[in-house]
C-alpha cells in the first residue's frame, strides 16, 4: 500500500498562503509606517485561525471517521478555560480586589481559599499540559463509554450535544469555581507579555498560524497512514471493519481524543486573543456552527474545513456589523444550501470546476 504524499497540492497551496500571512502580519503591523495591517485585523485573523484549527479537528472525526460530534465546542472551551485559568493567575494582585491569592470572582463570591483544581495554574507549563489533558480526558472517558457500547450515528450526535449542554449548565454555576456566568476575563499578560500590546497580538496570531499548520500536518499524517485508511473503513462500513479484526472502538477513541486535544489547543490560543472565556462557549449552537464550517469547506479534506471556518467567520464578522438582523438568516440558509446543493463543499465544487475548465480547452484542441 503506497503511502500518499504527506503534502498534496491543496495542502501546499494552503500552507503557502498561511506562510505569506505569517510574514505579512508582523511586517504590515509592526514594521511598516501607517500600519497597513491594523491591529484589530491582526486580532481578527488570529481568531479565524483558531476557528480553522477547531474545524480541522472536527473534520478529523467527522470527515474521516464519520463521527458527527455536536459537542466539539466543549473541548475547545475546556482548552480555553485551562488557558484562562493561567491568565487569571497571571493577574496576581492587579485585580479589582487586589487580592494576591484569589482571583477577583472568588473574592466576590466570598471564597477564602483557592480550590485544589486551581493549584499550580500559575505555572504556564501546567496550564499548557492541562490544555491537552482536560479535553483529552473528557473525550477519552466519553468516547470509552460511547464507542464501547456502539452508540453511533445520530444517537451519538445527540449525546455529544447533551454533553456540551450539561457542561454549559455546570459552568454557569458559581459553585464550580470558574467564574460562573461571567467566566474568566480581565487578563493582563501572558508569560510577561502585555496582552494589550500590538507585539503580543501579532505574536499570538503567528503562533495560531503555526498551530494551524501543525494541526493540518499532523492530521494529514494521520489520515494518510494506514490508521487513516482504517478510519475511512469505519466511516463507510463499520461492521465490516470489525470482521477484519480491527477494534473499531479503539480507533474511534484514538481519533476522538486526538481531535479533542487539537480543539483544546485551538481554544487555548483563542482565549488570550479575545480576552474572555465564558460558559456560552459550551452552548450547543456554537458546536453546531463548527459543523457547518466543515460542511461548507468540504468534509474530509482538512484544508477545506479550515477554509470553511475562515469564510464563515469572516462573513459573520461582516454581517453582524453591517446587517445584524441578516446574520442568522444567512447562517440558516447556509446550513440548508450546503447540505442540499454542495455535498462536497466549496473545495470540492471549486476543484471540479477547475477540472472542467482544464478539460474543456483540451477537448477543443482535440477537435481542431
Amino acid at each position: 500500500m503506497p503511502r500518499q504524499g504527506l503534502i498534496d497540492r491543496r495542502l501546499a497551496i494552503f500552507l503557502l498562503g498561511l506562510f505569506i500571512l505569517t510574514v505579512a502580519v508582523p511586517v504590515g503591523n509592526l514594521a511598516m509606517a501607517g500600519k497597513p495591517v491594523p491591529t484589530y485585523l491582526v486580532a481578527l485573523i488570529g481568531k479565524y485561525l483558531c476557528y480553522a484549527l477547531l474545524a480541522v479537528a472536527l473534520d478529523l472525526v467527522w470527515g474521516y471517521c464519520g463521527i458527527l460530534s455536536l459537542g466539539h465546542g466543549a473541548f475547545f472551551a475546556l482548552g480555553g478555560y485551562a488557558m484562562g485559568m493561567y491568565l487569571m493567575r497571571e493577574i496576581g494582585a492587579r485585580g479589582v480586589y487586589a487580592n494576591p491569592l484569589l482571583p477577583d470572582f472568588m473574592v466576590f463570591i466570598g471564597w477564602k481559599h483557592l480550590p485544589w483544581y486551581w493549584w499550580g495554574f500559575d505555572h504556564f507549563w501546567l496550564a499548557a499540559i492541562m490544555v491537552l489533558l482536560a479535553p483529552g480526558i473528557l473525550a477519552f472517558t466519553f468516547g470509552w463509554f460511547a464507542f464501547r457500547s456502539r452508540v453511533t450515528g445520530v444517537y451519538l450526535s445527540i449525546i455529544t450535544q447533551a454533553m456540551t449542554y450539561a457542561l454549559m449548565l455546570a459552568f454557569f454555576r458559581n459553585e464550580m469555581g470558574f467564574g460562573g456566568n461571567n467566566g474568566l476575563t480581565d487578563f493582563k499578560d501572558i508569560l510577561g507579555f502585555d496582552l494589550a500590546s500590538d507585539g503580543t497580538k501579532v505574536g499570538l496570531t503567528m503562533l495560531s498560524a503555526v498551530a494551524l499548520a501543525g494541526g493540518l500536518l499532523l492530521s494529514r499524517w494521520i489520515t494518510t497512514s494506514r490508521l487513516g485508511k482504517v478510519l475511512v473503513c469505519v466511516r463507510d462500513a463499520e461492521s465490516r471493519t470489525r470482521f477484519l479484526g480491527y477494534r473499531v472502538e479503539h480507533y474511534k477513541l484514538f481519533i476522538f481524543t486526538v481531535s479533542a486535544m487539537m480543539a483544546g489547543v485551538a481554544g487555548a490560543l483563542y482565549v488570550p486573543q479575545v480576552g474572555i472565556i465564558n460558559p456560552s462557549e459550551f452552548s450547543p449552537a456554537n458546536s453546531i456552527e463548527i459543523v457547518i464550517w466543515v460542511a461548507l469547506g468540504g468534509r474530509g479534506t482538512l484544508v477545506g474545513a479550515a477554509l470553511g471556518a475562515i469564510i464563515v467567520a469572516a462573513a459573520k464578522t461582516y454581517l453582524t456589523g453591517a446587517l445584524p438582523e441578516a446574520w442568522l438568516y444567512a447562517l440558516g440558509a447556509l446550513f440548508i444550501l450546503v447540505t442540499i446543493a454542495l455535498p462536497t463543499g466549496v473545495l470540492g465544487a471549486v476543484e471540479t470546476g477547475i477540472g472542467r475548465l482544464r478539460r474543456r480547452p483540451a477537448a477543443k484542441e482535440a477537435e481542431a
Partner: protein
Amino acid sequence: MSAHHPHAIGGLPPEELPQLYLNGVSRAFEGFKAINNLSLVIEPGELRAVIGPNGAGKTTMMDIITGKTRPDTGEVLWQQTVDLTKLDEADTARLGIGRKFQKPTVFESHTVADNLALAIKADRSPWATLFHRADVAEAARIDELLGIIRLGDKRHRMAGDLSHGQKQWLEIGMLLAQDPQLLLVDEPAAGMTDAETMLTADLLKSIAGERSVIVVEHDMEFVRALGCKVTVLHQGSVLAEGNLEMVSAMPEVIEVYLGR
C-alpha cells in the same frame, strides 16, 4: 427432529479436536426461533456446504460463530478450547475466522489494492497501523492475491466502481488475505457467471485441506461442484447431513427445500 450427539455425526474418533463445535445452539428474535437447537461439527481442513431454504438460519448461524449475535443457549467452541459466545467480531477475526458476506461489502472509497492491504494479516492495533510502513513482502502478497481474484488490472480503481461480481471476488480476495483457519462464505456465487462460479468452487476446494471452509449456497450446481459433505438447515436446525446425492434423495429434504 432430535439433536444428534455431535461426535456421532461424523463418526470421528473423539481425540481429534474439531475446528468448530456447535452444540444445542438456539437463538430467538422476539419469540421467533431463528436457530433452534443447532449442532454442527467442522473438522480441521474440512469443506462443508450448508444449504437450506430462505430464512433457514444460515446467515444467523454465521453471525453466531463470528460473535455478531449471541446465542440464547448452547455451546460454540473453537478448537474445543475457546468459547466463541464470549467474543465479538474483532476477536473472532483475530482468532482466525474469516467471513464473506451474503451482500458483498468492500470499502468503496479505497482502491482494490488498499482493500486487500487492509485485510492482510498483521497487527491490528491503532498504534501499529499508525506507524505501519508498506514493505516488499506486502506488495508481493497483494500481487499474488490480485492474480488469484483476477483483478490485476483494477488495482488502482476504487472498489466502489467495481461490478457486483467483481466485488464478490474482491471480498474473496480479502478473505484469503486474512489467512484465516476457518472461512465462512455466504453465497459467493451470487452475481457470477457460470464459468466464474466454477472457478470459485475450484478455489474453495483448493483452500480446503489446509483450512476449514463453510460455504452457504443456493446454487445446486455449485454445491455439486464442491463435492463435499452437505448440511441441510431447516427452521434453525439440521434436517439432514451427508453427500449431496444422499440428502437430495431424502423425502423430507425434497419437501422443505428442493421440492419447492
